[in-house]
């Protein structure tokens, strides 16, 4: 991927960085496709993508927290490993030590670097003052509100004067207003050059957050994670949500996020992605049939056609939260996606209008037609004289394609769907599946 090569030397550069889990049978579960990525000085970079797509794994590989399966990370041209890069992370969950006061939390990284007590205290106080935590030095984190806690998280990250500040969904555990305030404060520190940090790398699933903060936005695609699109933001700060340029960019990114193809990939990359896709078994989104029914009903009420962006807004959900449900409906042929718009299919229409028995019938047919795993399960059960098999049997099949955790979740979802479709019964105590005879 050719990024904005400004001729400046990147601080951190990832070359062909990938993450996979080799399986005993020689296959591998690819979590992140080989990716090139560079962090240049003077930029805020946002890594954007739906939850669970591998953004956090990417951040952990870039910071050296998690080893890459292949490829390497360079720090000023030197491979990371011999030298630890001077970076900090601000965590989504704050990750403060609850048994330490605010100032102890901020001092801890300095202590780890061998800074003596007096100097430590001085530097901690200075940064606490800068993030607006004056007067809270001796409070424990549990006495603080979410916003205050994250201010401590930022202070702790900045006190070591990191060259790159990494932020892993730093504002998503906060309420909307607090998040907005904290974003403003972060920009103030950054734009006012009040901190020696040379670049900020922020992972987020919130498109507007990315557009408000970032100079460069990298959109990740899923399965496996790969760079799907990249946007440069040329707007002066502070950026106004209502500005046409802003709205247009948000819309563009929306479309990129929901698009299924890979417009930015070179033919060779595309081939790799497609091959990887074919090799992998179909992955079920983890949703309940009930949630999908709700979505289809709302859609049917709106005439069977709605912009996902608008739909998410109406449900006060982020698009990211809506996607698994949408994916399920698309997978079952009850919904179509076109350029960020959701369109209900005739089957979907019938499903939305039907009573519970009809819904189950449609669901059953859709599942058997579209979900190979459930079809396999039904056939396997039919092949047995007593129509019964242990769930473990299918688990072993799934283990060939997914990591252990994922295969367990896949089976749970499949059992949920199969029960709803009245394909089989599941007895949790014995772990046995029994075919439902009609």
């Amino acid at each position, binding site marked *: 991927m050719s990024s904005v090569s400004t001729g400046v030397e990147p601080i951190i550069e990832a070359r062909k960085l990938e993450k996979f*889990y080799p399986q005993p049978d020689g296959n591998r579960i690819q*979590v992140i496709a080989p990716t090139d990525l560079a962090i240049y000085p003077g930029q805020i970079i946002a890594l954007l993508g*739906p*939850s*669970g*797509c591998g*953004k*956090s*794994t990417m951040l*952990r590989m870039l*910071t050296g*927290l998690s080893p890459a399966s292949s490829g390497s990370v360079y720090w000023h041209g030197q491979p990371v*490993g*011999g030298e*630890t890069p001077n*970076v*900090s*992370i601000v*965590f*989504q*969950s*704050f*990750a403060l*030590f*609850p*048994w*330490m006061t605010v100032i102890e939390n901020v001092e*801890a*990284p300095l*202590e*780890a*670097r*061998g800074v003596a007590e007096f100097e430590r205290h001085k530097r901690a106080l200075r940064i606490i003052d800068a993030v607006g935590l004056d007067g809270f030095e001796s409070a424990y984190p*549990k*006495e603080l509100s979410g916003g205050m*806690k994250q201010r401590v998280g930022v202070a*702790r990250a900045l006190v*070591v004067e990191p060259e790159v500040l990494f932020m892993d969904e730093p504002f998503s555990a906060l309420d909307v207003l607090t998040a907005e305030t904290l974003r403003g404060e972060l920009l103030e520190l950054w734009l006012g050059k009040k901190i020696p940090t040379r670049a900020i790398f922020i992972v987020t699933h919130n498109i507007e957050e990315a557009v408000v903060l970032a100079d460069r936005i990298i959109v990740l695609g899923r399965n496996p994670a790969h760079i799907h699109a990249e946007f440069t933001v040329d707007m002066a700060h502070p950026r106004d949500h209502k500005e046409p340029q802003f709205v247009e960019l948000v819309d563009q990114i929306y479309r990129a996020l929901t698009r299924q193809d890979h417009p930015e990939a070179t033919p060779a990359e595309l081939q790799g992605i497609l091959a990887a896709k074919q090799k992998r078994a179909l992955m079920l989104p*983890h*949703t*309940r049939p009930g*949630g999908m029914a*709700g979505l289809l009903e709302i859609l049917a009420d709106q005439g069977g056609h709605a912009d996902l962006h608008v739909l998410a807004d109406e449900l006060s*959900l982020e698009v*990211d*939260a*809506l996607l*698994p*449900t949408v994916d399920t409906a698309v997978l079952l042929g009850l919904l179509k996606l076109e350029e960020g718009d959701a369109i209900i299919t005739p089957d979907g229409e019938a499903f939305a209008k039907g009573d519970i028995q009809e819904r189950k019938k449609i669901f059953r047919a859709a599942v058997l037609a579209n979900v190979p795993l459930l079809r396999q399960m039904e056939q396997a059960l039919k092949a047995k004289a007593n129509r019964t098999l242990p*769930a473990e049997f299918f*688990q072993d099949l799934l283990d060939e394609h997914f*990591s252990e955790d*994922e295969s*367990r*979740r896949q*089976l*749970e979802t499949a059992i*949920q769907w199969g029960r709803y479709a009245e394909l089989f019964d599941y007895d*949790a*105590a014995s772990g046995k599946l029994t075919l439902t005879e009609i």
Partner: protein
Amino acid sequence: MPSPAPLPKHLTPLPPAAARPASSHRAWAFLIDIAVFVSVFAVIFGIYSIGRSWLGPVKVEAEISQNPRSLPLYAMYSLVRILVAYAISLVFALAYGYVAAKSKRAELVLIPLLDILQSIPVLSFLPGVMLAMVALFPSRQLGVELGSIILIFTGQVWNIAFSFYSSLKTVPRDLREAAIIYRFSRWQRFLELDLPFSTIGLVWNSMMSVAGGWFFLMACEMFVLGDKDFRLPGLGSYLQTAASNGNTRALMWGLGAMVAVIVLMDQLIWRPVIAWADKFKFEQVESSGNAHHSLLNFIRRESFLIRMYRRILHPVVDWMTLKFASGAKRAAETFAAPQGARPRRWIGWVFAGLGAMVVVYGVYRTIGELAQLHRADYFELLRSAGITFLRVNLALLIGAIWTIPVGVAIGFSPRFARLMQPLVQLAASIPATALFPVILLFLIRLRGGIEIAAMLLMLLGTQWYILFNVIAGAMAIPTDLKEAAQVFRFGTFDRWRHLILPGIFPYLVTGMVTASGGAWNASIVAEYFHFQGRIVKAPGLGSTISSASDAGHFNVLLASTLIMATVVVLINRLVWRRLYRLASTRFKLET
């Protein structure tokens, strides 16, 4: 793997599937279990053979005063033993848990070993350990003292170690990552992350351990082996001597002192410690009803302890942290890649080889000893094991029968609970072994008195575990379920069958597991006791162990101890662990 995405509110997450046994690990785990178990046999043999070979030259006699004036001194003796044993336990448990949690290879061996050591009845080692220690230190006092301390240590260390291990394993990922990214040294990580995160578990388990320690201490202090009097001056021996002589006044004084010591310890040590540990609660929001304690507040204000901490401990710890920090820095500068791994692995293999040789030799000698016994001896041993098995389970049954209704009544009524809780706690805190001579004094004249007394001792030692857990279980049943039972007009029978019994089941199992272990331990004291200059005994495996050690029948002692250990471990594996799994899957109340 990226962490699973948080689901939106209207899409409730799928319930977790039943725990899935990792089939590929099963065979391995089994082999490791066997190897570990066999090594335990070897260690037991080691303890006994040391004891036997040094049996000869020991000359002992003990003078226990019955004057209530000597009680404070005796109480202090007992307390020191408990505290020394606890201090050793804590250090050992921290090391054991730390190594098990941080080294994958060590974990493979240490955790199954812990599981077995935890379930072996400690008191069956009492004769062996005492003999070994007395022989090791010809100065009698030191040997017997150390023997009792070692025994208390073995009784209390395992659950602390396990608590620390499981805390370390559950340190939240983001905190671990923060420690790495901010370059904490191992020392700083231990001090500022691992230890604080584990504190609450350590405190609660320490309380349980020390309470259990009293049980063992009393047994140790009263210990008489054949014509050798190993009694130690302390509360246990005081009570035993008083009961033996039928001195009721002294008996009352002794019991009073016992209760006083336990209550004072609770008020002066545990309550402030619990209040202090509240700071380590892993919560994001301050919970209501925080533990406050006037003594703790007093300490926290300007006091000697605080000044000690500021002037001495804090600078020392800080200096160490900085020292380790610079050490880590230097290490990072000198070594580009970790190179020290290779020789260490080599050393590991040597140690493993040596360990295996010792184990093989121990097993070989054990088999040699066991081969000397005849088939009839084994038949006799199994018969007595059967008797003790029946006695233990009868005691458990009686315990369950009275504690379940009482516990549920207490748990369902907050007012009753407030009234009863301190009483029950006080009753439970008196070690059953301390009461045993008192019980014997009253029952000895009855026909079959020792049988009843043995059962009573087991009951006293175990029923509280069941009661506490039943109370907790009854309190945990959600109000809406109780209301549903009311709305649907469940009769008493249905109420118990559909609501109460399933609701308290997981708690009941937890209580019974602990109780079962305790009852087997108690059998060694209960079935065979030196009292009023003679021996009172009831048939059973415990009595076989004690009489074999009295008579110096080494091979019988070895065989019976091994049988008891095997029986207890088997019961745990075959019965309790399965019930436990059932409790944690089917009967788990989830919100």
